[in-house]
């Protein structure tokens, strides 16, 4: 007999190791939302089609709705909430200082990107992945990188502008 027994697991999220109880095949999303009470990654489709649930796994964007929690053990997960600390530490400053937002988050505010905002978690997470490898992406590179994420409010144009704005800020090492 095989049961979906809950196991005690340790996962590292936003710099902290958390002990959680979940069956090994539980998608990471439900652990982040229900056990760790994070609001950044959100359920959109459960099918890796829309990107609302995206998080960074060792810096690369993944879909937490289809990633079993067992698969992330020993790896570092960063959610939308963890981007400010990630940005601080990438610049060698202390993560504890109450958070200047990540330049992407600030750019999303400055460009007033959000309408409902449900999808924007994934857009920002994917953009964070992009900007670690491509410092000053072209508009087409941004479009391509974000093509697996869906926005229904139609904020697409502002999203592109916000990524460009953040890229400019980040290549100057912050504001």
């Amino acid at each position: 007999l095989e049961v979906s027994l809950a196991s005690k697991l340790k996962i590292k999220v936003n710099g902290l190791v958390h002990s959680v109880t979940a069956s090994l095949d539980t998608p990471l999303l439900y652990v982040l939302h229900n056990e760790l009470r994070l609001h950044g990654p959100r359920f959109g489709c459960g099918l890796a089609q829309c990107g609302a649930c995206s998080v960074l796994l060792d810096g690369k964007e993944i879909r937490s709705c289809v990633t079993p929690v067992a698969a992330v053990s020993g790896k570092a997960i960063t959610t939308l909430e963890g981007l400010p600390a990630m940005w601080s530490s990438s610049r060698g400053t202390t993560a504890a200082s109450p958070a200047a937002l990540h330049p992407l988050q600030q750019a999303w505010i400055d460009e007033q990107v959000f309408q409902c905002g449900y999808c924007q978690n994934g857009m920002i997470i994917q953009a964070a992945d992009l900007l670690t490898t491509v410092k000053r992406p072209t508009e087409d590179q941004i479009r391509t990188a974000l093509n697996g994420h869906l926005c229904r409010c139609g904020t697409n144009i502002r999203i592109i502008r916000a990524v460009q704005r953040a890229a400019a800020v980040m290549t100057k090492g912050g504001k």
Partner: protein
Amino acid sequence: MSEFQKERHFSRKRFVKAGGALIVGLSLGGPTASAGAKGVAGYQPPLGPYGPDVSQLDTWLAIHADNTVTLYTGIIPLGTGSITGVLQIAADELDVPFSAMRVVTADTSRTADQFVSSGSRAISSHGVPIRQAAAEARAFLVNLASTTLGLPVAELTVTDGVVSGGGKSTTYGQLLGDKLFNAQITGKAKAKTPADYKIVGTSVPRIDIPGKAAGTHTFVQNIRLPGMVHGRVVRPPASGATLLKVKGFKKAIPGAQIVRKGDWLGVVAPREYDAIQASLMVDAVWSDWSGLPPIASLEKAIREAPLYNPAEHPNDLRPGQAFPSSPISLNTGNVDAALAAAAKKLSITYTTPYHSHGSIGPSCGVAMWQGNQLTVWSASQTPYGTREAIAKFFGLPNNNVRLISVEGSGCYGQNGSDDATLDAAIMAQAVGKPVRVQYMRWDEFGWENYKSARVFDMNGGIDANGRVVAWKSESWGFTGYGRPEFHEPAHGGEPGSLISAQLTGWSGAEVEEGQGGGAPTPGNYSVPNAWSKFNYLGAPSPRRGALRIKTGSMRTVNGYDNTFASESLFDELAALAGIDAVQFRLNHMTNPRTIAALRAAADTAGWQYRPSPNPNRQGRVLSGRGVSVSGTVASVFEVTVDTKTGKITVPRITTAIDAGQHVNPDMIASQVEGAVTQGISRVIREQVTWNASGITSRDWVTYPILRMTDTPRAINVVLLPHQDLPSSGVGEPPQNGVGAGVANAVFDATAVRMRSTPLSPPRVRAMLKAAGVA
């Protein structure tokens, strides 16, 4: 058509054989235990069946000792920014800085019933009583200051909540901090004149955005309660199937329970992923059903569907409401004689498909029972209507149910929020614990309040001078409504319009409020002979009606469809006359605001005045431009068409909008961009599909929407404010003309008319091929 993904991912888990599945029946009762909401100022207004008394100032505003102000509004946050907008209006009237404003949005235990947050009315309609309340509050506070300071009102000024005069001053907080106004709204306080606005008309950043950026914002999907468990619905496998038997679970799932009421089936489990698994592992026997017509014969099915007969739905109207006495909504001149005498004429059928709202986050509701008191957390657009519908469903007085609005994923009309709220309440009652229900992607897409498909028979005639002399429209469609709520001035809601209630066997009234919103008209154009008839086909659902696809209101209601027909026809008439499409429209316009919008859009877009189609139609990829006008919004669309693949790209759009008083210009621009972008998606991508048994467009592969790589390169928004005029809506009007504008641009590019959407690559290719272009 690829099959939507359901089993592939979610059924991979293996389980042991079922132990005893617990099937919980429904029952009412239990001890009463509920606490009313405490307002920010500690005030709980007396509640009628539709909330606090709207004529009391304390219903709307509270002044705090720290000189901040709380606005209580029955509007719900939809992601449009309108909460920020009404706060601007209130702050300006009160003469307090915007930063002093706090807000409590719709909560049936605290805020006024502001009916439905829909129809682009948050500012234009719901902002009106807020402005008046704020003006009354300011007058009240200045009077109080007059007494306190011993100075006549005329000698007092207010700046940033500080009342000054004669070298003395006091603050709102000192005058009334955390005390009640105890005052009626008299209607006598005079609101400011627009010239005195300091905050209205400026692009104040939205209050919800910092939290959304940081990840601290709470959506209804994020609501958690102590002891809360997770629910999922189990919808019938076929739209009209009935539930014959529930045997239990096929495999054991820890703590999972089944809840059944008629054909309504749900599961509850302590862990969310277990609830999902449980929903797939219910061993239920359903009847077969296959009553939907083939998609290919949809137009025929719509034409043949029986008309809605009000006599068969005696409870669908409230006293004082009436259906239109005739399906003919417009009849001027003699259209048939004018058509017969026209120099040139057209007779054309346009069709539009069903659309899904396509919220990125599937709908969610959270419910908690305390005795016979129910509290629900909901993203419903009709907080009071849905509250009453739920109360009726459980046989309770309105005030035994409290609905607290929490923002959900953008809804663009009536998505599944109302149903999910009722689902949560049913499950929470059955299992005796708070329940959070979120739909799965296939539940949301599969059991929607779809925008009705429509069929339009359009006729137009021009005289020898190229003037439109006859305009005739006959159209068919299902309801544009389906909400559990009557629009103002009536209050109240009925569960009968909710699919969740229908599945339980609820057979009470549904709600109808007219005939689906009506038919196309010549709108902005002066046409001497015009006639329009709308064949209203009622409000079907999977459980009833001739064509069992549930319809409801989606952004623009029918504006997108009606404008597709009317602005396509007008464009065809322009081409028939050999006159430039912008000039032809201007020739028939009289409203200076519309004319200004069209000229602004054309000028900004660099419109080249010439008849369509584009004389240069060489090569594989053709380009063109089109125009459409709706109300005081005009847009120019530039397209390219790959004649080999049928792929349409819309690189640049220019939209000019006159929305009267513009409260927040950047939010208006944002709404225009979003409306247009979503509109492009609707015209080039979207179409609900089905087989004989039910909806098949149930994920993002089978219901594709616009992606980033297909996003326009530029959307130029030209704002034409009239600060001295009332505000008009901005969320919907810019979307009305998108379908027609794109189709008109495709005609300009290819000389082929696109009279049926979506303009998806295979369909465009087929239409081009049929016309000999590809």
